[in-house]
């Protein structure tokens, strides 16, 4: 019998904001990318995942936000057992996390505030005042004055900060970021990293995939390296 959502999230040994992977293998149709990987992340850590292109950094993040199921091993993220997680519960699991992507992934026809607000309104049905959450999140990333701007009217760094605001508006314990500064210049990178720092200082766990050495040296409290098929 396949366990339901309650069973999937009932792993009490891994608390809120924590991650525990044990002998996890993940891959695609054409082969395994991460083979028997073991990783433990405590709440409040700032972890950098580095490695060459194709090593599996993005694959690891896809595993962590429920986009790729583990082939073997055990994977528990924020108290949710990913092996037990049913496909129909993935969206509910994702609402426990925040995700930031290299290409921002903003909806071009919505303003900054609407980009933050819409997922809250559509997904977080029981939130009493999503408008206030959206405003607070934009303030946390220093973009209150750009709330009514469209993405095309914002710089790359500002767009990425809107994406971070969207990722943290529902107050997740874990923030996953895949090359969040890959398209940004140094000034914009500093602005974006400041937003991550704010989230981290408030007790959030940050997992960031990057191959930017300066970023790794300046911000990460812990670094793990993934090599192709050697994780």
């Amino acid at each position, binding site marked *: 019998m396949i366990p339901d959502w309650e069973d999937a999230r009932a792993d009490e040994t891994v608390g809120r904001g924590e991650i525990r992977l044990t002998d996890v293998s993940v891959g695609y149709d054409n082969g395994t990318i991460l083979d028997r990987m073991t990783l433990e992340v405590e709440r409040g850590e700032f972890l950098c995942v580095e490695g060459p292109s194709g090593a599996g950094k993005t694959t690891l993040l896809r595993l962590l936000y429920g986009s790729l199921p583990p082939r073997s091993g055990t994977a528990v993220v924020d108290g949710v057992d990913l092996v037990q997680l049913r496909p129909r519960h993935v969206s509910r699991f*994702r609402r426990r996390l925040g995700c930031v992507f290299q290409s921002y992934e903003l909806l071009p026809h919505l303003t900054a505030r609407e980009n933050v607000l819409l997922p809250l309104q559509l997904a977080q049905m029981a939130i009493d005042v999503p408008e206030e959450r959206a405003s607070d999140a934009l303030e946390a990333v220093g973009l209150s004055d750009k709330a009514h701007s469209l993405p095309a009217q914002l710089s790359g760094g500002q767009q990425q900060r809107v994406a971070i605001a969207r990722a943290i508006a529902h107050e997740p314990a874990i923030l996953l970021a895949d090359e969040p500064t890959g398209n940004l210049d140094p000034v914009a990178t500093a602005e974006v990293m400041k937003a991550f720092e704010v989230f981290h200082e408030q007790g959030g766990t940050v997992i960031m995939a990057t191959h930017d050495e300066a970023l790794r040296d300046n911000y990460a409290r812990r670094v793990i390296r993934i090599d192709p098929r050697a994780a």
Partner: protein
Amino acid sequence: MELWPLRYLGTLWSYSWRWQKRRLSTWVVTAAVLGVVLSVAAAVQLVVWLGERSLAGQLQSASEMQVFLDDGATPDQQAALRTRLAAVPGVSRVDYRSKAQAAARAARDPQLAPLAGASQGNPFPASFVLQMQNPGVAPHVLRSVAGDPALDPKIPASYTAAQAQSLNSALGAMKFVAGALDAVALGVGAVVALALLRAEVRARRDELRILTLVGVPRAVIRVPLLFQVLSLAVTGSALAVASLLYIGRHVIPAIDASLPFLRLGDPSPAFATLSVATLAASCLALIPCALLVRLPR
């Protein structure tokens, strides 16, 4: 706090409307095509309904059958035959019509009047007039009284089984053709709507992927699609009902005036039923499209 379900529904409606507004021209074209398709289907149904009513009238008159009596039949033989006729399942009434009554009716009939005038004496036989539940009872009547001495041996009855069967067959064929045409029309409507939805999903692939990534449930992502097909079904049906009213109020009376023998009559009693049926059928055909169209992973 208790108001959040209402607020959430409002949010979904607003999001769905915003989704639809951005590609309104595509929606308008699709609704117009759907309206034409549903109009054809509704018009076919109206014609079938009128035809069925006309045929039903003919069937009712066809349900009257005469069993002719031999001029030499005694009163006892006639009484025995009447009893046998009344016992046939499907015969609801048996009346006696004398030779004099038959001659009087023939004199009023434009086709029989010359025969009545030209004949010496009374050539029209007495008969029993049977009311049957439907013309299909006629063959049973003929079988049950075959060879009865009271029957006119040359022309025992006014009616043959073949006539009854052809009337029933015509009605059945008409219903079948109408049903097939409606199924085709709804199928075309569903294909048109599905094409629109697939185009919508393609055009908004990035948006749907982003909503999926940030944890919006897939059921919620489908809501705008559902909203879209419902609005298409309602608008298409409204166009079809408007066409129906126009046909019923202008086209049918014009046909009746120029071809009175068709006796199509007043179509207005069918409007409400056909309108509701058109809306219900279009919703039933289109809603599965919103549920089945593939969303990006």
